[in-house]
């Protein structure tokens, strides 16, 4: 069903749910997948690609 030539959509790497690039989204932004709740990081806007966000590391925080 997914149109492979449409560069504004991609699929969740975890659950394969279709994802649409929303207005105002930024590169490196963290988005929750609406299908499975996984934390995704936007790796590119054009074409729209996402990866599973990296696990929290020991020195992360405020």
């Amino acid at each position, binding site marked *: 069903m997914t149109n492979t030539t449409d560069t504004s959509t991609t699929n969740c790497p975890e659950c394969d749910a279709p994802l649409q690039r929303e207005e105002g989204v*930024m590169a*490196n932004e*963290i988005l929750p997948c609406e299908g499975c709740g996984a934390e995704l990081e936007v790796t590119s806007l054009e074409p729209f690609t996402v990866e599973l966000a990296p696990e*929290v*590391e*020991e*020195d*992360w*925080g*405020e």
Partner: protein
Amino acid sequence: MQIGVLHARIRLEEKLIIAELEKRGVDLKLFHIEKLPFSLDSDGALETFTQVDAMLERCISHSRALNAIRVLESWGVTCVNRFEVAEVCGDKLATNLALSQAGVPVPQARVAFTPESALEAIEDLGYPAILKPAVGSWGRLLARVNDRESAEAILEHKATLGTYHHSIFYIQEHIAKPGRDLRAFVAGDQVLCAIARYSDHWITNTAKGGRVENYPVTDELREVSLAAARAVGGGIVAVDLFEAPQGLVVGEVNYTMEFKNSIEPTGCDLPARIVDFLLEVAEGRELIPTPAPAGQVALSAVAAQGRGGTS
């Protein structure tokens, strides 16, 4: 005017700050900390970095941020926050030391390097005692130790299972706080706003169901927060405070604070206030706080008041 933002993942906080900078029409440059190597050669400074009038550091990894700021400052880049601030705030032991040296009230703390001496420190502070990694955040791996048996077990686990960081045993006195802690947002010599964080869990900042409310900036809160911010080297920081029976004590100071849940309850436009400060710095505002012995006098007056009952 050119402003840089050094970042990794873009959380809502970074998004809001970036949107605010764009709204002000400043020339904005984003630098992804993971995307380029930094040269340590004496002529290694990159012009794209040295051109900015101020660099806001908003990275999620403390050790990466710290080392990047170290290099950028060597290139002459004005960073918010400064290296010294990141170094002190990123390590709870260093923070406690800087605060107590400056006369800011803190929970009593000990550092020990073996499970045996850590046990001695815990018994000296009394139960319950708090064990936490010196570097870490979001309430991870915090332990409230209620008796000698659990102290022995936790210390053994930390020594055996943890990386070497976990054998730097940082131990704090437990503060019998009401079911909340406080946080003051500070920029330079101004307290922007404050919140109270409530939870039924003893870890009131991160536990599930924790709720945020506005907290009035009282004289005591302002005095203690500004003294804490000054003691760690100034800039834009969030001061976490506990209400101890004798008055406010500072638990820690955060130098890359999160604030998305604090905007609505306080009504304070934190991204806008952060940008205001950043622009002032870019225009030449001094970042290093001037030592103010007067502040310490005010502090002890506040502490005496807080003790109450006796006056």
